[in-house]
């Protein structure tokens, strides 16, 4: 059986007055049905751009190259109308701040009715509300919230409602872009538990985009680490955390502060700007294991070891 999502050689370039910004460069990513992939990286590494490009939600000044095959169809080759129907029906996305995604002038019920009718114009109001109640129960939200406006709800409730809106058509893939970053730790953990149980119930795959390695460790089956628009490393979660291979992954893991931290570590330098294209490895200026070849030759993603891992580094 083929994978649910297969991204190949994906590049996203923004044209700006200052020059071209290469936000995503030559990225390959595969997501199997019902699985969770964590896409981690720091701000500006291109992880959100990649997530949006999969849904073809990139802005007008972006050019997208490569291929995105979803359930056997190339999303980049489909007419916009068909993509729009896939989006919301088979592919859904939740964002960091649910308040900005809900219309402040619309009651929650109208969000549901509108979403359902966008895909199924013939559905009666009553039936739409019935379906809304069902998915709300799945995300543990009392159905009296349907009559409320977004501002009357707490942050956690809003995010649950966003998730419920995504679930209406039982999508095969949910892209969650920093879904818990605006929430406190306890709420974050609650939402994650919820996503986990819903994934099972709906047999849904999740692409979790986050800067938080702890979340990925708790949630994802596989991890993809992004740096400066490139994929640095990709592999199954447990072996990757046990033995990170790319120096950036190693640095990122070492700089996590958790309850057992006794020694602080930070990666030297700062992430590069994505203006213009760099010759060699983008991590070269910050890398503690850099070699001469790294300066001039870009390291391709290569399989390393026997745990289905790929690393973009000349060390391997």
């Amino acid at each position: 059986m083929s994978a649910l999502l297969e991204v190949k050689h994906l590049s996203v370039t923004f044209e700006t007055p200052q020059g071209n910004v290469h936000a995503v460069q030559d990225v390959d990513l595969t997501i199997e049905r019902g699985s969770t992939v964590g896409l981690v990286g720091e701000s500006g590494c291109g992880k959100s751009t990649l997530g949006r490009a999969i849904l073809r939600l990139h802005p007008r000044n972006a050019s997208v190259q490569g291929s995105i095959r979803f359930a056997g169809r190339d999303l980049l080759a489909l007419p916009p109308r068909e993509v729009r129907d896939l989006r919301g029906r088979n592919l859904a996305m939740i964002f960091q701040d649910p308040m900005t995604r809900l219309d402040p002038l619309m009651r929650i019920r109208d969000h549901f009715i509108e979403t359902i009718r966008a895909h199924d114009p013939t559905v009666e109001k009553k039936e739409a509300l019935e379906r809304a109640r069902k998915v709300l129960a799945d995300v543990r939200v009392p159905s009296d919230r349907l009559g409320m406006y977004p501002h009357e709800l707490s942050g956690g409730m809003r995010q649950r409602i966003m998730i419920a809106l995504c679930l209406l058509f039982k999508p095969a893939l949910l892209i969650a872009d920093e879904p818990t970053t605006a929430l406190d730790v306890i709420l974050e953990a609650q939402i994650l538990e919820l996503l986990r149980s819903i994934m099972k119930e709906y047999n849904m795959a999740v692409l979790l985009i986050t800067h938080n390695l702890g979340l990925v460790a708790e949630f994802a089956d596989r991890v993809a680490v992004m740096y400066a628009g490139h994929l640095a490393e990709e592999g199954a979660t447990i072996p990757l955390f046990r033995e990170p291979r790319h120096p950036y992954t190693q640095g990122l893991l070492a700089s996590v502060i958790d309850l057992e931290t006794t020694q602080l570590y930070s990666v030297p330098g700062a992430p590069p700007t994505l203006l213009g294209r760099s010759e060699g490895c983008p991590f070269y200026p910050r890398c503690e294991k850099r070699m001469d070849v790294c300066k001039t030759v870009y390291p391709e993603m290569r399989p390393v070891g026997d745990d289905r891992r790929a690393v973009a580094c000349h060390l391997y």
Partner: protein
Amino acid sequence: MSEPILEVQDLRVHFSVFKGFLQRLLGGGEAKVHAVDGVTFSLREGEVFGLVGESGCGKTTIARTLVGLVRPTSGRIRYRGKDVNIADKKSRFQLQQRIQMVYQDPHAALSPAMTVGEAIADVFRTHGIINERGMRIPATSEEVVRKAALRALADVGLRPPEFFYAKYPDELSGGQKQRVVAARVLALRPRIIIADEPVAMLDMSVRARMLEFLLELKDRYHLTYIFITHDLATAKFMCTRIAIMYLGRIVEAGPAKTIYADPKHPYTRALLQAIPIPDPERRTQKVLPRGEVPNAVWPPAGCRFHPRCPAALATCGWEGRDFVSFLEERWLPSDMEAEESELGPVEAWEPADFEVRRESSSDENPSRIADRVRQILSESGGPMAQAVTAVAVEADEVVVRFRRPDLLAPKEVDGRIVECLLY
């Protein structure tokens, strides 16, 4: 043990909530956000004191009160044993020179239209230049001011200072901006620095450097820190003592080591458990508190954490609205229609302090409703059900009454202060 440099006693900060015309007409008590509601702590010279809690717990309000941005409603603040008259502008101003604050977002703290050098020079122009011995030298010439600003930049590691002097904030990285903010704060030679989530906006790979930098400044300038964070892991690394806050109150406070080794308050435990562990081989099922932090305008009775607490007792402060949430929750999984027909819609239950009432319509039998309530309460058997003193029928109303909560006060337990009825 050294004398406390700062003591905060029973500090309260309440904010009035704007009410619409109709609400004012309808009356009801004045609505106030109880942002900080009786907080007491002291700061020892040279320590890093952590104020830890989720958003809305009041930690930032305390900070803003200490630097004079917010007027406290009541309470005492003592600096080096001397009372600071909160009502007096001048004495608050003197305190402000001693206490300075580093904010979460360095970008918002710097003017985008000013070079960072100028931003620092401006402080010297306003307050004069304070030398190593704490002497204030008036800023006589631009040359003196510029020199002082350059030295301040070099002192926080922005070298060569001439290069950074002419930079605008958006030309710098987050870490560099945070250093500029630090340079400006240090220009007044404060004794206490309040760092409000100083690394929350920074990327993981550079966070540690900022924390190390803060610790280095502390040693170099003999500073005392109040470190505000929602992140218990960072607090553990940075702080000598911590206070965990929830909805305007300190629920547990003491030496960091003691609290992390054996957290006592159920909220502290919940916070610790919720932290994601960056090790996929140690995934565990978490027992999380239910729901979210309630509205601080009407904080829960008794212990404010009781509606979410996994270890709550019958004496913790159960009240009418807890019964309403209980009904909401129990209806979720089961067949709603059948339940609703007997108890009526949730909205029909009107909570008021320690009771909750529901008027029955002419075609309903209030004693049947009361029986049903008794039944579901005994089925649940939880602490809320145990707190019910009576389910009664009064005329055509069904009333559920709750016992009053036991008195809650901070108590010393195993080397730390806890505010919880379990102890």
